[in-house]
C-alpha cells in the first residue's frame, strides 16, 4: 500500500505531458472533453489518495482502536504509514478542499454576476453592440448568454470577418465552454500539477469555437483572417487592454517557433492547416483515448488498491 497510495498524486504528470500534443492533434471538442474529464477524475483520485493516508494515520490512534475495537498492534504492524505522513496528508487534504471550495464559490459567483450583466444589457437579441473604441468581443454566459462586441472591433473587421467572429462567440455560448474551463480550473485548484491541463483546455475551447465558426462560415481561412485582424487591432489600440496577471499566470507561457507561441498564432496556424478527418471505421482516435483510459485507470487502481489494503489490515486487526 505504501507506494501505491502516493501514485494517484503523481498521475497528473503523464496527463500534463500528453495535454499539449492532444490539444494540437485531436478534434477540439474531443480534446476538450477528454482533458477536462480526465483532469477532474485525476484530481478526485489524488484527493482520495490523501484521504486514504489520513484514515491510515487515524486508525493507528489508540482512541480510534478503542472505539473501533481493533488490535492496535496488528494495525501498526500491518500498515506502514507513519504519523508524520498522515499528518502531512491531512494538512494537504484540508488545503486542497479549501482551495477547491474557494475556487468553486468564486466561479459560481462570477458566473452569476455574468448572468446578471447579460440580463441587464440593452436590446432584445443575443448580440449587444457597445459604443467603445477599444476593439473587444466576448461571450457573456447567462440565461440566455449574450455576445458583446464593441464598435471598435466592428470597425476593425469587414463583413466576412464579423460573421466569423460572431459565429465563434455564439459557439462558446452554445457549447457551454465556460463549464469546461471551470471543470479544468477546479481540478487545477485541487492538484496544482494539473494546471497545464487547464491551460490546454482554455486553448481547446477556443479551437472548438474556431472550428464551429469555420463550419458555419464554410471557410476556414475566413476565420483565420478574422482572428488575425482582431488580434492585431486589439494589440495596437492605444488603450490596449491588459490581460490580468492572474490569468496569464494560470495559463502559463511557453518557449520555442510555433510551439512557443501564444494561442492566437497557434489558432490561426491550425485553421490554415488541413482539418483533421477521422475515417469512419476508426471514428475516434484510438491511441489517445486508450492512453487517457490507461492513465486514469491506473490511478484509480492504485487508489482502490491502497484503500483495499487498509481495509484488509483492519479486518485482520479484528475491526467490524
Amino acid at each position, binding site marked *: 500500500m505504501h507506494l501505491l497510495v502516493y501514485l494517484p498524486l503523481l498521475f497528473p504528470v503523464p496527463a500534463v505531458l500528453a495535454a499539449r500534443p492532444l490539444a494540437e492533434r485531436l478534434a477540439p471538442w474531443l480534446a476538450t472533453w477528454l482533458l477536462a474529464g480526465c483532469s477532474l477524475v485525476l484530481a478526485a483520485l489524488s484527493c482520495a489518495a490523501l484521504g486514504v493516508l489520513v484514515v491510515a494515520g487515524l486508525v493507528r490512534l489508540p482512541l480510534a482502536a478503542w472505539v473501533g475495537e481493533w488490535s492496535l498492534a496488528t494495525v501498526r504492524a500491518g500498515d506502514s504509514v507513519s504519523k508524520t505522513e498522515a499528518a502531512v496528508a491531512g494538512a494537504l487534504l484540508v488545503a486542497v478542499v479549501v482551495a477547491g471550495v474557494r475556487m468553486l464559490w468564486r*466561479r459560481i459567483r*462570477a458566473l452569476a454576476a455574468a448572468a446578471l450583466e447579460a440580463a441587464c*444589457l440593452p436590446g432584445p437579441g443575443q448580440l449587444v453592440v457597445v459604443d*467603445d473604441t477599444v476593439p473587444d468581443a466576448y461571450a457573456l454566459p447567462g440565461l440566455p448568454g449574450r455576445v458583446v462586441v464593441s464598435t471598435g472591433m466592428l470597425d476593425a473587421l469587414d463583413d466576412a470577418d464579423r460573421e466569423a467572429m460572431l459565429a465563434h462567440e455564439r459557439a462558446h455560448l452554445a457549447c457551454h465552454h465556460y463549464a469546461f474551463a471551470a471543470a479544468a480550473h477546479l481540478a487545477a485548484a485541487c492538484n496544482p500539477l494539473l494546471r497545464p491541463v487547464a491551460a490546454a483546455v482554455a486553448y481547446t475551447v477556443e479551437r472548438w469555437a474556431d472550428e464551429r465558426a469555420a463550419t458555419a462560415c464554410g471557410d476556414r481561412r475566413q476565420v483565420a483572417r478574422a482572428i488575425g485582424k482582431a*488580434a492585431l487591432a*486589439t494589440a495596437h489600440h*492605444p488603450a490596449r487592454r491588459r*490581460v490580468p496577471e492572474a490569468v496569464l499566470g494560470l495559463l502559463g507561457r511557453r518557449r520555442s517557433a510555433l510551439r512557443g507561441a501564444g494561442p492566437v*498564432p497557434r489558432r490561426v496556424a491550425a485553421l490554415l492547416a488541413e482539418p483533421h478527418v477521422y475515417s469512419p471505421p476508426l471514428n475516434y482516435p484510438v491511441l489517445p483515448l486508450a492512453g487517457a483510459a490507461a492513465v486514469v485507470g491506473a490511478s484509480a487502481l492504485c487508489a482502490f488498491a491502497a484503500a483495499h489494503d487498509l481495509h484488509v489490515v483492519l479486518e485482520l486487526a479484528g475491526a467490524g
Partner: protein
Amino acid sequence: MNTGPAPGGRRPGGALEAEVLALLQVSRQAQTPGEVQRQLGDGLAYSTVVTVLSRMFDKGLLTRSKQGRAFAYAPVDDAHGLTARRMRQVLESDSDRAAVLSRFVQDLPARDEQLLRQFLAGLPDEG
C-alpha cells in the same frame, strides 16, 4: 503616514477618477483641467488633474476638444457604452470574472505578432 503631495496619494486612483467622472457628468459643458481642479477643490495639483483626465481619455471614458491652450474634457455621451466599459474594467480586475468570459482574441505579445503577420501574409486579403 503618507502626507506627501504625491499624485493620487491622497486616495485610491479609481476613487479620484469616479469623482472626476461624476463632476463632468453633472456639468453641462466640457471642462478644462483648471476648472476641474477648482471644482474638486481640495488642494490637488494641476498636474495631477491633467494626468487623471488624460488617463481617463486614454481609457475611452472621456472625449476632449481643444479650448484655447488647454483641452476641455467631457464624458463619453452614451450610457450603454459607459456601462460596458465599467463592466470591462470590473471583469479585467477580477481574474475569476475574466475567466467566465470567452474573448475572441487573447493577448498578443510582440513575438507572436511577427508570427501572426507571417501567416496572414500568406492569405489573400478579401476584405
